[in-house]
């Protein structure tokens, strides 16, 4: 479904993502982990069109999307959440999501339909779906949910979820992980899930890719990742 080949991004002289390749197959829940600054969010930004790759190719359902604008990628059915939530504060919660439903489908849904899609997405993530509630009262968990609802309402086939657990307490983390799992099974949406901690993610994902300093250092089953020497080095510090 998604095929990333030799993806590279440098900021000036600094290489944030270096020759990364991986595949995501339909229906998969793939984990993408790595310590802070290892290039996970940059990888997402490249796939979603927020950043332009320095080199490499990104194919989504057979079509090259590397270098497309973010809104075009969204229209193709690929949605993403931001690590640090970026709600539209001037709009209410439902309006945030309705907007995404309307524009995410690129004029293929009317306003009423967008409204219905928004309500559905808000119910999926467990946020109030009335028109009056503002984003003001949302805490960390609520803002993460809004990110997710907004992405979901664009009706994606592939979802890139960036650090859905950041800033959450243990109970909220379990809830969030369970939600992603549910979105995958119930809605049939393929998911790439980024997290810098292993934790809950490892229990849920089918497969995991580990980045370090912009390079892919591991790809395989979660159980194998836990036993991998390089992964251990990255996560536990170098052990001689």
């Amino acid at each position, binding site marked *: 479904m998604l095929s990333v080949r030799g993806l590279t991004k440098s900021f000036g002289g600094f290489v944030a993502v270096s020759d990364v390749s991986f595949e995501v197959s339909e229906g998969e829940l793939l984990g993408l982990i790595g310590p802070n600054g290892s290039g996970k969010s940059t990888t997402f930004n490249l796939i979603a069109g927020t950043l332009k790759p320095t080199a490499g190719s990104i194919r989504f359902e057979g079509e090259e999307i590397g270098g497309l604008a*973010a809104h075009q990628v969204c*229209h193709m059915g690929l949605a993403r959440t931001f690590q640090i939530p970026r709600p539209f504060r001037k709009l209410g919660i439902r309006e945030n999501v309705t907007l995404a439903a309307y524009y995410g489908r690129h004029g293929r849904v009317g306003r009423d339909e967008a409204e219905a899609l928004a309500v559905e997405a808000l119910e999926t993530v467990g946020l109030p779906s009335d028109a009056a509630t503002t984003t003001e009262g949302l805490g960390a968990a609520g803002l993460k949910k809004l990110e997710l609802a907004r992405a979901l309402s*664009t009706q994606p086939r592939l979802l890139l979820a960036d650090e859905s657990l950041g800033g959450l307490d243990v109970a909220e983390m379990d809830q969030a992980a369970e939600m992603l799992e549910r979105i995958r099974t119930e809605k049939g949406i393929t998911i790439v899930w980024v997290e810098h901690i292993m934790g809950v993610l490892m229990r849920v994902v089918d497969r995991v890719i580990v980045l370090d300093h912009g390079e892919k250092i591991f790809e395989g089953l979660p159980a194998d990742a836990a036993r991998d020497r390089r992964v251990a080095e990255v996560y536990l510090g170098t052990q001689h």
Partner: protein
Amino acid sequence: MMTIRWPLALLFAVLLLLPLGLQDYLLHMAIQILIWGFVYTGWSVMGRFGQVSLGHGAFLGVGAYTTALLWNNFGLVPWIGIPIGVAFAVLLALVIGYPCFRLKVVGHYFALVTLALSQVVLLSIVAARDITGGSLGMTPNSVGQSSWLALQFTSKMHWYFVALAVWAFGLWVWVKVDRGMGRAAMEAVSEDETAAAAVGINVTREKLRVTVISAAMTAFGGALFGQYQMYLNPETLSGIGVSLQIVFAAIAGGMYSLLGPTVGALLTIALTEGLRIGFGTTLIGAANTIYGILLILFIIFMPRGITGFFGAWTKRRAATAAATT
């Protein structure tokens, strides 16, 4: 909805009957308020989304001069000349807007680009003095009588109703923009372009949309004002002075509410007339300085303008009244 509809209907009824009781001088004031209210409403269609243009004089000038030049040189009636002038302004808006929006020239930088634009148009009009009359201005050829075809009227009453219709049209456009999904999209864009793009909003397109609407309205207003005055001057129809006057009026009146820009027009016309009557010709040109100072004061103390301020005030009063009963 009811709360908004009734006063508006009442306002229109008053405005329809108003000219019956006014002498020419007050009618002249009213016409100017309506035409400029239309222009300021046009500015706020984009300004309210944080797209601050300091160069709307450019569109004003293009609309007015195109219409007048086509009439004087080719005998094209304003019914054709105005659409062509509006089309030129739209083209100009696209030529400036597209690269700006693609290259993410926003905020102060965008304001500076538009400021330069208005000056370029002013200098072009002055430089082309052979056909535009340069800084001395120009006069559209008069047909010497009232003519719908030439859009020239000897009676102010005619002009009043033309201006009223155009002004009402401007309000309608404002409401259309306000009620559409495009408004929410532009609110999102004005807050966070990256997040807006991520949910499928074509940021460049949405920005161009409001810019084009705004430029078209401004050019239309400029052309109309030229027709009404039967005199075009580069200083009053392009350049920084009038551009800042537009910004001042829209912000002071309140660009987030339907009638805000019109209140702004009331203010600028009153100010200009007040200065003229109170100080005669000694203070000619002082208006711009005063606009500048007032603009700063408004931005600091009343950023939502007069209508925004009183809107919040009545809401607060209603809230305290409800709390005490």
